[in-house]
């Protein structure tokens, strides 16, 4: 029987990897992938808590998160496609029209 701490440890590591990926990678696709990692990490901790507390609400939330993640990817990829059509690149650094 593994302890709750080890589950949370794995979840934390995955979350940190995702965070680094989101903030450092210049490729928008990689940013989206890292975002998925963030969601997966939180899903993992939800499921772990659910198991150790004997409460199914945690598992229920995971379904919602997966649903939201699917929608997010659909929209995010659509935005990337549009972005490529518009400025012919998918580098996040070139996406700075929103500045002063």
């Amino acid at each position: 029987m593994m302890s709750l701490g080890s589950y949370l440890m794995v979840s934390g590591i995955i979350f940190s990897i995702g965070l680094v990926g989101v903030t450092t990678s210049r490729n928008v696709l990689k940013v989206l992938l890292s975002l998925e990692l963030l969601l997966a990490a939180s899903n993992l901790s939800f499921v772990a808590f659910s198991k150790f507390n004997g409460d199914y609400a945690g598992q229920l939330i995971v379904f919602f998160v997966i649903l939201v993640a699917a929608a997010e990817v659909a929209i995010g990829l659509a935005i990337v496609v549009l972005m490529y059509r518009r400025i012919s690149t998918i580098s996040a650094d070139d996406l700075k029209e929103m500045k002063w």
Partner: protein
Amino acid sequence: MVDGCLVWTAFFAPLIACLLITFFLLKNKNLSSLVAIAGILTSFVCSCLIFSQIFQASPPAQLQQSLPWIHFDNFAINFGFLMNPLAIMMLLIVTGVGSAIFIYSRGYMDEDPSSPRFFAYLSLFAFSMIGIVLSDNLIQLFIFWELVGLSSYLLIGFWYFKPSAADAGVKAFLVNRLSDFGFLTGIILLWSVSDIGAGRSFQFTDLVPVISHIDPSLLTGIALLLFCGVMGKSAQVPLHVWLIDAMEGPTPVSALIHAATMVAAGIYLLARLFFIFEPSTTAMIIIAYVGAITSLMAAILAVAENDIKRILAYSTLSQLGLMVMALGLGGPMQGMYHLTTHAFFKALLFLGAGSVIYGMHHEQDIWKMQGLWKKMPITGWTFFIGTLALSGIWPLSGFWSKDAILALAFEHNPVLYVIAAIASGLTAFYMGRLFFVVFWGDTSPGRRKGDHHHEVHESPWVMTLPLIFLAILSAIGGFIGIPQYIFPDQAPEQLNMKVAIISSIVAVVGLSFAFILYGKRSATDPLIKMLGGFYNVLKSKFYFDDVYAWYVDHVQQNIALAMEKVEKSLLDSLILGELVHLSRIAGRGLRYLQNGLVQRYAMVFIFGAIILFVVLSQNL
């Protein structure tokens, strides 16, 4: 029993006409004038019915209806009317003379392409004027007072493409604003001391018992501030300057607003609020003298004027001065009596002048007119009646009302009597001058050389009919018992024979002097030679306008320039300038936060979340 519905109908009929014209009929010349006439006639008919209802009862009925309008906890303004004999007489004048002038306007403004606008303004004016007459509290009165000022401005500047007309409108508005400032101050001052247990109030009926509780010197101040408003609206010295220039407006406007009704609003106000003025002897004396000086000064100035409408305007000033003097001498009855008859014959004279101007194709210089009697018989006859009535010839209406004022002055203040008598003599003289120059002599167009295509003609019946109506009123105005209707509880005035004989002699002398001078034609005014240097003083209207212009140019302008410097050096550069500088620096620093890089935003967000997490977990 007075029917409240009738009063409200009389009140709002012209407003409805005005709105109908404004929204639907601005392109329809024919229908718009009919709608305006229907509106004022509705008011007139209602007024006649109210009149009969009021005087069926004995003593005459009185009715007040007041709806709450603006109410804070102890601040209340109502919207209502106070109908009494004084108000119904004024209402009859406004709607009756108004109806005659509306009908006349249909003929006079026939050729003007924007006459629907004219009728909309005229209806707005009628509504505002009725509002002044009926108001039962000071704030409502003030609002309509300003509305009347506005419609006067609009109508004076009706031909706005003429710079002189536009300027005259602005002048009238500014002068009236100046006086209304004093008026409003007086209203607020009166309101602030009007609490004698039942709370403060603007209602006339609530104010009546208040007056005796007010400190006498304060009451004098209030009375004079209220009189300030009267001085503007009724054009008393030194605020009379706007009325002469107001003649730039169309002639029916001059007849209705600047002779018969609006300028009489000041007199009406004095009479309606007489309970405020009466206890203050100082204020009453000042009012009487202001009136007398206005009367004399205007009569003198009228002698040297050559524009037919301006002569009548001066005459209006002079008569208004007489009425104000009567009020100042404690005779609201005499003042209102003269107001009524003056409304008849002055409206008649102005409409006659309008008819002449119309017939002469917009010529207003009396020296370019001659022998119009034969060409325009109806205008001539009615104008003749008006002239005699204004001069105070027995038995026309002007004789009775003017004599009532003169008798009042004779009994109370000999100085004022002499001033008023001289003014009356001058009135007879300048009216005679006007009449003989314009209508006398043969019709040979000797003076109008090189002007063949303009044939003088009599005006159409829509214009002559109101003339005849007003002429009848001017003639019989002395016999229909007007004073008894206005002040039913006062004993009828006995004719003071001594005063009557003196003023008749004065009037006849004035007229005959005019006939001697002007009965025989001369190319120029013989007065120029007779008066010499004084004539130029008269021509410059006693320098009132010049003094005001000098004041504005040299005093006010310099103050304004100095203030501008203060503003630029102190406010702009020192205070505002530093503030602007500060925010500019702050902006320069803060704009690095907005660099548009999505991932930088994400970083900020993440670190923010971490900091929040740390802070919150420490507090746990």
